[in-house]
């Protein structure tokens, strides 16, 4: 949102989530070791918090790892429960965490896959692996502006097509695109129209 | 006297609507005028003491066939590309020719009817074994005009099968 009023950055915004490494005595589940062994370089980091296993995968390995997690017999993560993102503005080199909550209807286990991407860094879509990712990736694109590539239908989903900016980003004001909209919608519309006309010219 | 007035009024309406059918630009309006035309023709039948024919006229033509016309007219996209009618008069000669032929034919029939004495005995049997308009129509259809009647029904059947074959893309 280039022309949105400057929003004061949150006081001491955290630069990233805590990703506690699993304690030494924790048994690492089979799907993690199997992924580590079979897709080289796919597990950059491993984390365990409150019983949730998180595998941090480099963006370059995402589709490969996803494919493996879905197809390998000891993983069988056939169900993509959720796909979302988190915005960490201070982390310039990798602003977004894109999260994939996976579940296996066969083994009934869960894992969270996390990919760190920068603002304009392309990230391969996983719609080919889980069709369920279609709308979820659209939402992440809509709300965060994560640049998914290879998505069959990359449009905004919740916001209007011509919306400027990505509302879920931390630097996007809670009030929306400026106070003008709230206080004087007609002026706001005029402003928008003149901007549109300028665009056309 | 009253009958004559009624006849001429009806005839005027029939002709007027017939002209409107061919002159109206909007196809749906044209079909509607056709329906009105049929209704007035039915009224003419009533005037001729033929209620059965009148009712059948409404049922078959106004209520059945023209509905299908309307259906087709509404469904088919009539806004053809301009090249489809470059020359709106390209068939006018043929049209005039056909109209002339029909006119001559009609004239010939009328003339022959007027010239010759009406063959009263041949046109209708002097006494039909049934009374009532409906019964008489039925009797004539199944005795005198049996063969034309059956041929017509065969024709309709063939047309129906043909339409199904044409419309159904894969059988």
């Amino acid at each position, binding site marked *: 949102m280039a022309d949105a009023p400057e929003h004061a950055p949150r006081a001491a915004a955290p630069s990233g989530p805590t990703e506690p490494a699993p304690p030494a005595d924790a048994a690492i589940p089979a799907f993690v070791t199997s992924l580590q062994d079979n897709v080289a370089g796919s597990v950059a980091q491993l984390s365990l918090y409150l019983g949730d296993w998180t595998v941090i995968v480099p963006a370059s390995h995402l589709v490969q790892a996803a494919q493996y997690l879905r197809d390998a017999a000891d993983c069988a993560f056939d169900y993509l429960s959720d796909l979302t993102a988190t915005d960490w503005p201070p982390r310039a080199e990798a602003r977004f965490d894109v999260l994939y909550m996976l579940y296996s209807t066969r083994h009934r286990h869960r894992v969270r896959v996390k990919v760190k991407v920068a603002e304009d860094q392309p990230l391969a879509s996983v719609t080919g692996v889980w069709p369920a990712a279609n709308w979820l990736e659209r939402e992440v694109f809509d709300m965060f502006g994560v640049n998914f590539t290879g998505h069959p239908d990359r449009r905004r989903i919740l916001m209007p097509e011509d919306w400027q900016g990505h509302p879920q980003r931390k630097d996007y004001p809670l009030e929306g695109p400026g106070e003008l909209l709230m206080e004087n919608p007609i002026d706001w519309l005029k402003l928008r129209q003149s901007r549109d006309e300028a665009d056309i010219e | 006297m009253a009958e004559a007035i009624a006849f001429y009024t009806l005839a005027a309406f029939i002709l007027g609507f017939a002209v409107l059918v061919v002159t109206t630009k*909007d196809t*749906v*309006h044209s079909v*509607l005028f056709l*329906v009105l035309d049929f*209704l007035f023709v039915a009224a003419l039948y009533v005037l001729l003491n033929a*209620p*059965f024919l009148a*009712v*059948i006229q*409404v*049922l078959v033509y*106004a*209520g*059945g066939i023209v*509905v*299908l016309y*309307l*259906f087709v007219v*509404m*469904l088919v996209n009539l806004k053809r590309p301009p090249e489809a009618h470059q020359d709106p008069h390209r068939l006018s000669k043929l049209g005039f020719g056909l109209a002339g032929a029909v006119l001559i034919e009609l004239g010939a029939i009328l003339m022959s009817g007027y010239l010759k004495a009406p063959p009263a005995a041949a046109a209708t049997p002097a006494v039909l074994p049934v009374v*009532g*308009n*409906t019964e008489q129509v039925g009797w004539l259809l199944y005795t005198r005009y049996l063969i034309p009647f059956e041929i017509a029904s065969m024709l309709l059947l063939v047309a129906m099968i043909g339409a199904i074959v044409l419309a159904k893309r894969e059988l």
Partner: protein
Amino acid sequence: MIEQFVIPTLKILIVLNATLVGVSYMTLLERKVIAWAQSRLGPMRVGPSGVLQPIADAVKLLLKEDITPTKADRWVFTAAPVISMVPALIVYAVIPFGPVVRLFGRDVSLYITDINVGLLYIVSVASVGVYGIILAGYASNSKFPLLASLRASAQLISYEVAVTLTLVSVILMSGTLSMVGIVNAQYNAHVWFAFVQPVAFVIFFIGSLAETNRAPFDLPEAEQELTGGFHTEYSGMRFALFFLAEYANIIVVSSVATTLFFGGWLRPFPHVAALHFLDLIPSWTWFLLKSFVFLYIFIWVRATLPRYRYDQLMRLGWKVLIPLAIANLVLTGIVKVMLL
């Protein structure tokens, strides 16, 4: 003079007004019966137990703004409700509410006219009523009404075939097309035709549900699918005309069913002397009572059944009802010839 003009005019006025009042109260009946079926009360505010509701509705609809969509076909849009209302009303000309009775020292027939093609007249007039629906959908210049009117025309034409075929079976039984003649034929046959032509009756009933756009065949006005169906774009009195036409048609088919299959104005067992006390009740009461039962069943069906889908409706019409009706007709013909 009186015989020729005054009495028919009076009769027409009475029937017309009675019909319009009956139709508007039919809407109240429907709302009430469905409400009771659904454990509700229905209209309760206007008049005691809501009996004045139809009048309030009529006033409301008359006062409402009459909207014509900008891109509508203005003339056709205006004509369509009239086209559907008029046939629904003129059908009443041949419906016999009772036999010839002595009234004020005169022989008065309790029907407007008895033409010898009465049944065909009803069928043909009803077939013209289809135009109202088709044209409404077309003239609105809107997609949902168009879709609905296409559904409607296909549905009405298809079911008309089945219904007309069942009527032919009845004509075979009675040997006449006159409505009065058909009732008299049932009197002479000592039996209502519903009992000798049960298949025809069932097909007729299903067909009339479809022809009057009633549940479970109310696809042309399926509001869950097509918003409002063919009258989506209509408002005010024009909308009311469609509404009234539909209910007038329901009353017509109920009357026709009564006349053709349930002995019209005849009391039950007209030949049984032991039941002579039933003659105290006037004949037209029997007619109204029987018709009322049909009206009730129409409403009852609506409260109970889900709706058919378009292709299922067509399949039912063409692959079940029409072959059955033809088989029934042929069978009736054979039996008739064998017995004679």
